[in-house]
């Protein structure tokens, strides 16, 4: 009985010493994963995920505090990329949380009173203007986060879809008549 105790204590002590030493030797500083996650996120800084910006969301994901399906602007592709990066299963968007078509904000120049509230809301400084002057949105910098819509006291900001142009046109996915189900409702893809 005593020898059994000694054996177990001995093993524990030895392992404890080894682990203790390696804990010091292989100490890891910071979490390099956050940068990688942040690089996948679309940087709209819209806060639709419930975090104040893309970086905080990335930090939350890295810590395992947030799900990967909370970013509508990233689209399903974004979830897929996150799933791949983190080695977890793809997860569809929750009810009504899907992505919307890409759009940019547009300020109705007639209605704008120049209150600067939208300037303060814009996370990427894509609105130009000054107090008492009408504001303009730099369309090429606008991420379509819609954060400027709510603060506007006169509702002069609207979202405008981007028209397709020769530069942004994409070849469509080929129609693959035979391999597709005849009646797609019967077989719903699960992922």
């Amino acid at each position, binding site marked *: 009985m005593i020898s059994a105790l000694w054996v177990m204590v001995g093993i524990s002590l030895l392992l404890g010493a080894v682990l203790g030493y390696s804990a010091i030797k292989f100490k890891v500083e910071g979490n390099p994963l956050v940068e990688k996650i*942040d690089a996948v*996120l*679309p*940087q*709209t*800084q819209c806060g639709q995920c419930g975090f104040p*910006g*893309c970086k905080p969301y990335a930090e939350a994901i890295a810590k395992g505090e947030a799900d990967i399906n909370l970013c509508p602007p990233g689209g399903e*592709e974004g979830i897929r990329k996150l799933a791949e990066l983190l080695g977890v299963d793809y997860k569809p968007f929750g009810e009504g949380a899907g992505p919307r078509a890409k759009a940019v904000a547009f300020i*109705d*120049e*007639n209605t704008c009173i120049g209150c*600067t509230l939208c*300037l303060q809301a*814009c*996370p*990427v*400084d*894509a*609105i*130009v*203007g*000054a*107090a008492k*002057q*009408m504001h*303009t949105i*730099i369309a*090429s*910098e606008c*991420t379509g986060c819609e954060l400027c819509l709510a603060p506007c006291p006169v509702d002069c900001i609207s979202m405008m879809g981007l028209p*397709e*142009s*020769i530069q*942004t*046109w*994409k*070849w*469509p*996915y*080929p129609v*693959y*008549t*035979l*391999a597709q189900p005849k009646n797609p409702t019967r077989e719903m893809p699960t992922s």
Partner: protein
Amino acid sequence: MRRLDHFHGGIHPDEHKLESSELPSRIAPLPPQLILSLHQHIGAGAKVQVQAGDHVLKGQLLASAQGMVSAAIHAPTSGTVTAVRPHAVPHPSQLPGLCVHIEPDGKDQWIEHAPLAYRAIPKSELLAKLREAGIVGLGGATFPTHVKYSLAPDQRIQTLVINGAECEPWITTDDRLMRERAAEIVRGIEVLRHLAAPAETLIGIEDNKPQAIAAMRAACADSDIEVVIIPTLYPSGGEKQLIKILTGKEVPSGGRPTGIGVACSNVATAFAIHRFVDYGEPLISRQMTVTGNVRTPQNIEVLIGTPLQELVRLAEPLPGVTGYILGGPMMGVDIEDLRLPVVKGSNCIIVKSAKLFPPAEPAMPCIRCTRCAAACPADLQPQELHWFSKARDFGKAQEYNLFDCIECGACAYVCPSHIPLVQYFRFAKSEIWQRERESQAAEVARERHEFRLARIEREKQEKAERLAQKEREATAAREAITLAQALAAKQAAKQAADPDFEPDNTQQMRINAAIERAKAQVAAENPKNTEVLTPQQQAEIAEIEARRAKLREAAAHPGADDEPPKHS
């Protein structure tokens, strides 16, 4: 006899060249309208230099090159610019692009032009002239010629390859051009030889064009240009493939031929250069094959900007037309609208019929038979690329060298499952490009967001500092006031002592000064967030400001314009 190399794969589709190659080419009559796309070549679009209502002469500059990879566009005939507005252009999407619309006046009056003594001017100047003359590669890719021949100081061209292979079925423009204009082509080649100074010049022609070979041989008889006969095999006319056949060198993936000491131009390009240096004519016309389901398939010299319907009408379409292909059957674009204009890169229009071009059979799943891999001239594995593109696994597709695909169509041609492989690859490529754009935008957004956070932080600090400053000032002021009061008490004592003393209105002056300061501040109020704008954006903003100023004015003088201002 030169030892020829070969590339991997290749196919032998039915040639269908005899239909159009036997008639002499003719010149198309002046069309009632010309539509010139501003985006005719690879690289940045041209910058329009005319307005609606302008009268232009034949050869007059319509749009100038902007940026490095770009070329100018000229009026193909004299007439009036009726509009500068979007019109459907020959692009797979057939979406509208900005076009200059010209109504010919029928006089076909040339602008002043003169031959160019190109040997007398520096090469850089000659290149600039080619750029101004809008000379681009006419083989299909429309790469601006001046860019191709702008060599780095350490670059030496060993071989100049002139492409007369014309491997796509149905097309015979180069064949016809070589038969009819061999001497002129050689004159153009001489200009290219002057630019590239190659050790050898080779003209590669497929062996299914014996008359063209004979004509070119005769024209090159007293020069050291060599006409090389290559076996007929699609896609021998691909730039990289032809270079491999003739020189045995492989253009590195993602690189240009000049990197391995080879320059390559099409015979039609050489002809266009000849027209420019010997007559001073910019690139305003080209040869096109009209063939397929028409009574007289033939080659036509046509002005750039001619609507395609004019061409098809000249060849008299037969009944049973099911559509049109702009370009060859292997790499062309399926179009329905014949109002599309001819661009510099157009080489052929094929009228389809159900017999000549039966509709695509439904695609079966890929059985990995690798007939596509055996046919691929780029040594790719199309079955893998298809597998990944189909599953939208674009990262994998890129890993398997999707971007080395030249979209020649050989894989889809041989596929027993009739899978539209090329479309899968184009789909995957455009998705990847879009992702690239999005990630670039995200990068910019991240930077701007971080800049904003830094700015807010800085402003907060500044505000804190200002507060501290004010606090200090206030303390100082309080002290000053105490001092002043003491002083005033003293003065009062003095005044009491001396009745002639006049008190200064320091208080009043201070108030005035403060008002002045505030006014200055208001006047100097500038728009925020303008630190990182490009000049273009600033110009846009200025435009909007101008519009607003106008609006304000209109608002200030109601009644001047009853209509409320409209916004797009």
